[in-house]
């Protein structure tokens, strides 16, 4: 099929307002009579609340409301994440709007204040008297698993969930192996560090509907807010703003319930924006994992056994932990065809910050481990990094250890080779203190949500009488071009320039619900829904034009605002005339379409088998590093990302996802760690929690493979989260190549590298 708009690197529809400073982010919006909210947070990671006295705070002039758990109609909730399916207790967990009885983490919300100014709200926080009885708490997931461990919750076990995968005979596999590599890996808490902290403004409208204008990846949280307040779901409206970054951190509910409670209490508009320190302290983190790996291969380099034990720190509340752990379990053996696999995973509550979605969602933690393991095997076997991966990786027709079979193209051998070769000829360091090393890592990650969630998306497309078009789709745009992709699809299908398309996004009252902007799902889901709607309208236009031109439909094409005969190019009718004709005959020029992902049953036990995700994206990273032998400082000099993206709908946006994903996890590999000591955060701001700056990073080279084998529109695959995979282990493998030490815990700081080099000598 010839494409005119799809594939072009067009500027995003939202870019122009953003460069002019005109985009109204969540905190940029205000209303007359608006109050300012603040959250009182727990001073202890584990404590019992003996009493809360709000009387002095309430008496402070300018204070309009002080709320605690007893003011929340439904304070104890089962976490839902936009799914309309009831997935059962194994995949949901308790969380609280405000702390009640027992405090579970430092920074947990205890009380809310709304006042006439931020200063007054802050003063009021100081006047709330909370009496705590500090409790011992538990901060290490391994300790929290032991019998008799401190219970993080009231009565329930500290174990959030367990999963396992079994394939072949693991003992026989290791018995037949010529070489076995065993290591234990650790990855830390990290923060999303989007530059826009959590924020929203809410108000009560004249019909008694609570409107919440908020920076969120999930507008479907309106249902949770309704549950918190005990209101019908149609009395809460969420209007999503253009996000100042999300990365999974705005997938869980943030300020929505707090705002709704305060609006309900005061009747006034209320704004709540977290400080950076609050954001670092008290919103979700990426799960730390402890990962014990044992991998065995024959001497000709065939990997025949893999055993993995994963322990994830869920922090203080469940949130998305069961889903993250399921992703980790499915990904634990990596994109390899291994006959004998045994995976056991467990997620455990602790009194640490709660952990939930973070770009990569459980797939990237085991990726660090399995790709380090494969590299060590290659060294023992004397194989090069590319050969061992090409020999063992999945191909079309092969299956995951769960039994899920890939019936589509699996690009792993191709992407691995292209990335590795793009590094070019190796060079020696001229400086005796500096060692150069290279590393390769491959990976896979799903796009689209877990199939047992029965995911769907809806989109509405409409042609106006003047030939312009409107899209309404409840898609939150995080900056990844989520809205742009839908505009390009409609422009392509209806033959109109992108400037003539206006998209309305992210509003539960006015846009069809499109589901969450999470799980790398929007291009796949809302892209397909929009494509379906546009093609339905196109079909109606072609049918009408066929009559008008007296040409069979099969011989017509739509382009440049005309419907043209393929056989006689001079024979055409303008789109506007076809629209006018349709309109006068009552033919509908709008369509709302729904796209459903494949549905599977909810896993009935801990044993995970069969299909869990719609499809996967495959990619590889090759890197070159220079390591200073004296200081242990690593400079990443080259990064090549090669991904099978299926089809790049917008080349600039796809490259942007890969470049951004690479640097997001270059930080994970080398710099980022949220240091939590006995439940207390030691990296409270961006002065201590360092993320990569422009001066820290190389220019990422991207190589796009377009196999057309994806489930998205035009054969596209999702890349947002998969882009984060594999760069961290590629860097660890390059450090190993440069200085001969295997760093098994992230981040690979200069200290760890220097100590490892000293230990080796």
């Amino acid at each position: 099929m010839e494409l005119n708009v799809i594939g072009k690197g067009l500027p995003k529809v939202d870019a122009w307002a953003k460069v002019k400073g005109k985009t109204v982010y969540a905190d940029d919006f205000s209303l007359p009579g608006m109050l300012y909210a603040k959250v009182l947070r727990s001073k202890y990671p584990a404590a019992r609340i003996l009493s809360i006295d709000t009387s002095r705070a309430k008496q402070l002039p300018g204070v309009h409301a002080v709320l605690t758990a007893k003011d929340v109609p439904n304070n104890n909730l089962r976490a839902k994440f936009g799914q309309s399916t009831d997935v059962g207790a194994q995949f949901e967990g308790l969380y609280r709007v405000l702390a009640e009885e027992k405090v579970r983490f430092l920074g947990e919300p205890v009380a809310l204040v709304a006042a006439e100014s931020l200063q007054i709200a802050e003063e009021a926080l100081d006047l709330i008297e909370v009496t705590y009885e500090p409790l011992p708490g538990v901060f290490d997931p391994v300790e929290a698993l032991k019998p008799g461990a401190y219970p993080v919750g009231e009565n329930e076990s500290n174990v959030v969930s367990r999963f396992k995968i079994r394939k072949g005979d693991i003992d026989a596999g290791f018995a037949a192996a010529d070489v076995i590599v065993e290591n234990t890996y650790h990855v830390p808490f990290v923060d999303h560090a989007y530059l826009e902290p959590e924020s929203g403004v809410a108000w009560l409208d004249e019909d008694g509907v609570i409107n919440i204008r908020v920076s969120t990846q999930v507008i479907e949280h309106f249902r949770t807010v309704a549950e918190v307040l005990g209101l019908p779901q149609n009395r809460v409206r969420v209007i999503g703003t253009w996000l100042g970054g999300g990365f999974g951190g705005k997938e869980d509910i943030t300020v929505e319930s707090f705002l709704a409670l305060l609006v309900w209490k005061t009747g006034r508009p209320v704004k709540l924006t977290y400080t950076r320190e609050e954001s670092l302290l008290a919103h979700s983190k990426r799960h730390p994992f402890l990962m014990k790996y044992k991998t065995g291969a024959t001497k000709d380099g065939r990997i025949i056994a893999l055993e993995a034990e994963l322990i994830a720190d869920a922090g203080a509340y469940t949130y998305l932990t069961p889903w993250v752990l399921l992703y980790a379990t499915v990904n634990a053996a990596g994109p390899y065809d291994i006959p004998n696999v045994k995976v056991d995973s467990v997620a455990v509550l602790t009194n640490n910050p709660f952990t939930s979605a973070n770009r990569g969602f459980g797939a990237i933690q085991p990726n660090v481990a399995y790709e380090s393991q494969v590299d060590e095997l290659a060294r023992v076997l004397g194989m090069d990094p590319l050969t061992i991966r090409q020999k063992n990786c999945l191909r079309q027709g092969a299956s995951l250890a769960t039994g899920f079979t890939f019936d589509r193209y699996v690009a792993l051998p191709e992407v691995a080779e292209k990335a590795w070769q793009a590094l070019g000829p190796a060079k020696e360091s001229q400086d005796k203190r500096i060692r150069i090393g290279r590393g390769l890592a491959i990976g896979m990650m799903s796009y689209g949500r877990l199939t047992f969630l029965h995911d769907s998306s809806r989109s509405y497309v409409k042609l106006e009488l003047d030939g312009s078009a409107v899209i309404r789709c409840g898609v939150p745009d995080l900056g990844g071009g989520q809205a742009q992709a839908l505009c390009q699809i409609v422009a392509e299908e209806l033959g109109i320039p992108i400037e003539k398309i206006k998209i309305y996004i992210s509003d539960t009252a006015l846009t069809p619900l499109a589901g969450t902007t999470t799980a790398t799902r929007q291009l796949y889901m809302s892209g397909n829904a929009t494509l379906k709607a546009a093609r339905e309208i196109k079909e109606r236009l072609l049918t009408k034009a066929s009559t008008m031109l007296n040409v069979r439909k099969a011989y017509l094409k739509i382009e440049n605002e005309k419907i043209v005969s393929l056989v006689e190019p001079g024979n055409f009718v303008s789109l506007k005339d076809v629209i006018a004709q349709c309109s006068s005959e009552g033919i509908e020029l709008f369509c709302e379409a729904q796209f459903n992902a494949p549905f599977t049953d909810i896993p009935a036990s801990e044993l995970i088998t069969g299909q869990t995700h719609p499809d996967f994206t495959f990619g590889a990273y090759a890197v070159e590093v220079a390591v200073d032998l004296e200081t242990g400082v690593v400079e990443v000099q080259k990064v090549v990302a090669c991904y099978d993206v299926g089809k790049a709908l917008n080349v600039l946006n796809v490259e942007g996802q890969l470049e951004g994903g690479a640097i997001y996890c270059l930080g994970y590999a080398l710099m980022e760690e949220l240091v939590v000591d006995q439940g207390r955060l030691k990296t409270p701001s961006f002065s201590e929690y360092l993320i990569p700056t422009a001066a820290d990073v190389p220019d990422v080279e991207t190589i796009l493979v377009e196999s057309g084998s994806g489930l998205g529109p035009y054969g596209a695959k999702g890349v947002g989260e998969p882009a984060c995979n594999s760069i961290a282990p590629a860097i660890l493998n390059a450090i190993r190549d440069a200085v001969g030490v295997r760093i098994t815990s992230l981040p690979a700081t200069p200290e760890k590298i220097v100590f490892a080099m000293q230990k080796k000598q």
Partner: protein
Amino acid sequence: MEIMREITVTVNVNGIPVRAAVSPQESLLDFLRYRAGATDVKCGCNKGDCGTCTVILEDRAVKSCLVLAAQADNRRVWTVRGLEKDPLMQALQESFATHGAVQCGFCTPGMLLTAKNFLEHNPKPDRAEIKEAIAGNLCRCTGYKKIVDAIAAVAASRTGDRA
């Protein structure tokens, strides 16, 4: 000695004098966002780490959260919205959009102002110099490559070199 609770300052914001009585501790960032309506100046950390609040104070790019409103008294401040007709800013805006240098856009106003101020002082920078210049402006989305591309292209077109 009497402690001053309020002082009156006048800051020229994008060509328009804005006068207000403020507390002596009020930051220029708060003054711009809450009193001058300049919500294109963002607050990402409020302690000088992220660069989203960058503005041009007279002829220097500064982080407005680290400047007191009182220090800007009787001085001129420019934000992105005030530079709509500035040819260098226009070139940078166009270049950022067409190079894919904008994802979420939250760092963009500050990044553009840093870039403009930098190019005025260093019209022919290499990539390493551009990266140094924007190292105080964090971006979490792009990995910086396309931002550097966008700035380099403007520098090249202004000096007649090809990007």
